[in-house]
């Protein structure tokens, strides 16, 4: 290690107690006084790596070198002592406290028993000036814009005399001009001698800001390069990775009539990932439309609109001939929606209820499962058993709680429930994320055979192999808009999707 290295990760591995392997043999180093980007999809291991650096997790093997000495960071306090500060993606600010109070929370400037407001204010002004981050020390955080809150968050980290600043997806919440402003500040901080670790999906930003990039994929270092020596194409390849999987033959289906149509749909409220702008999209019967995009590009907003969780602010949504502009989830389901939610534990199931309850929930309102006012328990159990058999759900029995199932088996049961409603339209949101290969393949077959029987499918996934294996058509979202519409012919590869997903190109 040369002395111009600030941190070095040396053969870091992390295996969680339940056997999940998050990081494998990760080694790279970060030079002093530079902006170093870390790229990778969700689940690639970025956040685990940052947690290790910030003292929230301990590595299972390997070690960290900081300032050329091996360090053992046991807690966030220990990280702070080393001079490591972090700006989290979800801010850790207290809304009702003022800017100054937030910056000095836990390390207040005192005057006897009281907070020395004068000194605090002076210190904030000093920090503001030095780092060129103008804030009003007396404003309540709840009154600030997101960009201003981020400034406070950065000042909070800087107030602790740090040498390394970690920024986790800092631009996810910012508009383009705000992003430019942030970048100017970060460059300024770098010039002051600070080392910055910048975590991002967005190639353009990495390009604009960082001098070095490390790419993580599936818990390993997939690439590590000096950006000065790479052209856009090479970086894009590095970030997106090469698609190694052999694509299974797609079954050619004849498209049916338009099933779900969105015309000029916008919804500007909510978190950034939930905002969509001017969406035009049609899903036909028997068609699988894949939605690609880096996390937070508006896919969540699209799913919320197509499941009745939110309604559009402007524009029209039609579902088999019926206007759905003001429809609730109940209306959507009555009209023939099935929905595999991305967060299957939070939205898709109840951990404490039995498999029978989970399998029949929703359908229990239909006459098929009732005898008069009562539930037909026997039919519920039989139907559940049939689902368990048909979908190959490994479980102790139909009365076991859902929490007794593995992720893949739980997802199979949820899919069995949703598919059993004989839907016309299926929204599959990350249908196989985090589940085993066999279960994923099974679900893929199921989704295909549903499409073959006339169901229209909207597939939202961050797994590009899955996207290309299933979709008839692909739309790419970026910044809440559809930026590309592509037929899924043999020419379509992850490499071709990359520039659209990263916001470098636009065709639609």
């Amino acid at each position, binding site marked *: 290690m040369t002395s111009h290295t600030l941190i070095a990760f040396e053969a870091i591995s992390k295996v969680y*107690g339940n056997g999940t392997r998050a990081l494998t043999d990760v080694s790279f180093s970060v030079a002093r006084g530079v902006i170093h980007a870390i790229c990778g999809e969700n689940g690639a291991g970025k956040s685990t790596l940052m947690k290790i650096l910030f003292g929230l997790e301990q590595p299972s093997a390997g070690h960290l070198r900081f300032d050329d000495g091996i360090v053992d960071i046991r807690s966030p306090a220990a990280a702070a002592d080393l001079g490591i500060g972090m700006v989290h993606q979800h801010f850790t600010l207290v809304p009702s406290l003022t800017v100054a109070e937030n910056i000095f929370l836990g390390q207040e400037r005192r005057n006897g028993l009281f907070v020395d407001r004068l000194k605090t204010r002076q210190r904030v002004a000093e920090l503001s000036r030095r780092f060129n981050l103008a804030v009003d020390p007396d404003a309540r955080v709840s009154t600030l814009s997101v960009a201003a809150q981020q400034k406070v968050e950065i000042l909070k980290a800087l107030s602790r005399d740090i040498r390394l600043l970690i920024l986790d997806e800092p631009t996810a919440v910012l508009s383009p001009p705000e992003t430019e402003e942030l970048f100017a500040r970060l460059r300024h901080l770098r010039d002051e001698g600070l080392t910055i670790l910048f975590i991002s999906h967005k190639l353009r930003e990495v390009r604009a800001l960082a001098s070095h990039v490390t790419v993580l994929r599936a818990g390993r270092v997939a690439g590590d390069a000096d950006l000065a020596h790479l052209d856009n194409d090479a970086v894009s390849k590095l970030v997106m990775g090469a698609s190694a999987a052999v694509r299974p033959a797609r079954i050619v289906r004849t498209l049916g009539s338009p099933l779900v149509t969105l015309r000029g749909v916008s919804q500007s409220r909510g978190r950034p990932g939930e905002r969509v702008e001017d969406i035009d999209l049609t899903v036909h019967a028997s068609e699988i439309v894949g939605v690609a995009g880096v996390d937070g590009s508006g896919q969540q907003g699209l799913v919320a609109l197509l499941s009745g969780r939110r309604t559009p602010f402007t524009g029209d949504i039609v579902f088999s001939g019926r206007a759905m502009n003001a429809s609730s989830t109940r209306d*959507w389901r009555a009209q023939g929606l099935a929905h595999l*939610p991305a967060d299957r534990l939070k939205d898709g199931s*109840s951990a404490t209820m039995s498999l029978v*309850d989970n399998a029949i929930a929703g359908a229990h309102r239909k006459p098929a499962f009732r005898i008069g006012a009562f*539930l037909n328990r026997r039919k519920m159990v039989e139907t559940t058993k049939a689902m368990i058999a048909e979908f190959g759900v*490994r479980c102790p029995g139909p009365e076991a709680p859902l929490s007794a*199932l593995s992720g*893949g088996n739980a997802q199979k049961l949820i899919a069995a429930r949703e598919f059993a409603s004989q839907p016309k339209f299926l929204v599959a949101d990350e249908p196989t994320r985090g589940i085993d290969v066999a279960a994923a393949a099974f679900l893929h077959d199921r989704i295909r055979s549903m499409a073959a029987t006339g169901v229209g499918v909207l597939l939202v996934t961050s797994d590009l192999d899955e996207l290309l294996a299933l979709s008839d058509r692909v739309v790419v979202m970026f910044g809440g808009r559809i930026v590309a519409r592509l037929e899924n012919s043999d020419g379509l590869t992850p490499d071709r999707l990359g520039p659209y997903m990263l916001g470098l190109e636009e065709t639609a």
Partner: protein
Amino acid sequence: MSRKALAPAIVTVAILALVVAVVMLPLALTTSDPAGVLQTFLFGPFRNLRYLGNIVEMATPTMLCGLAVAVMFRSGMFNLGVEGAFYLGGLATVAATLLLPMPWWAAAPVSLLIGSMVGSTVCILPGVMRAQFDTSELVTSLMLNFVALFVGLFILNYFLRDPTAGAMASYKIPVEAQLPRILPGTRIHLGTVLALLACIAGAIYLFRTRSGFDARLVGSNSAFAAHLGLPIRLVMMRSAAIGGLIAAAAGGIEMLGLYTRFSWQTLPGTGWVGVTVAILARDNPILIVPSALFFAYLQVGGDLVGRNFDVPIEGVGLINALVLLIATAAAIIRNPKLLQLVSGDNSATMSKNLPKAEAH
């Protein structure tokens, strides 16, 4: 296997025994005859039919209140209006028997129906406010309990008071409105049968009907209920209405079953016992029956001790409180080490702490 399944029940019983011992032993030791106190407390309630009857009588209202609490807690509502609903239900039932002209056969059922509807408002209002305005049902129901008390006292004082009764009390409840006694030698009345049926009906409602299923879904995971498109607000209000009706009916049944006049000057505390009963029964309507009988047994034992020795029956209230504390303490009652010790194998801890192996 069966030992493993029984482990939580065994732990619960052992803890209950411990709590009783912790309260009653020192209390007994303050008297000249500790052995006698303990013997009366533990075995007295079984000594004759009348005392056994007392257990059942006392378990009747708490069974119903516990059921009301269970129905509301199961749907995720922390509605504590049971206490006020019980009080107001009792008062309104008595008022109906006194003020409405009715044929003899209608007196009890019609009064109970009216009493239940009036009393249930104490639970319904917080439920509606929670569903419509997202106000804390906890605070509003606590307040409404006292509103019910004072409105009740007003009605008692101005419309029902018998000036010849001496103390503040209503006119006598007409004999034809009183619930029939069903077991000679005891005061066990028809209400007990109603309470048992209600618990069975409650179990059927929660586990065998559509709207009970709705309620459990909303209570166990409201995001899941929203994903399924369930009408969450309606489910909340319905649960509050059912809970309120049961609790208020309990008050009416208590009045028509055991009392000759309405004379409650304060909230009787039955609703609070109902909370404890429901928590000990883990909000399971069938388990509420033994749970209510257990607390009634303690109460009768306490009464007997209070009558025969110089020991106040409030020790029983202390036991109730400790049981409530411990029954909600996950770290105690669901302690994996404790369960493992009782069940004799270590799979109890394994299954709790480790995610299951991925099965293909």
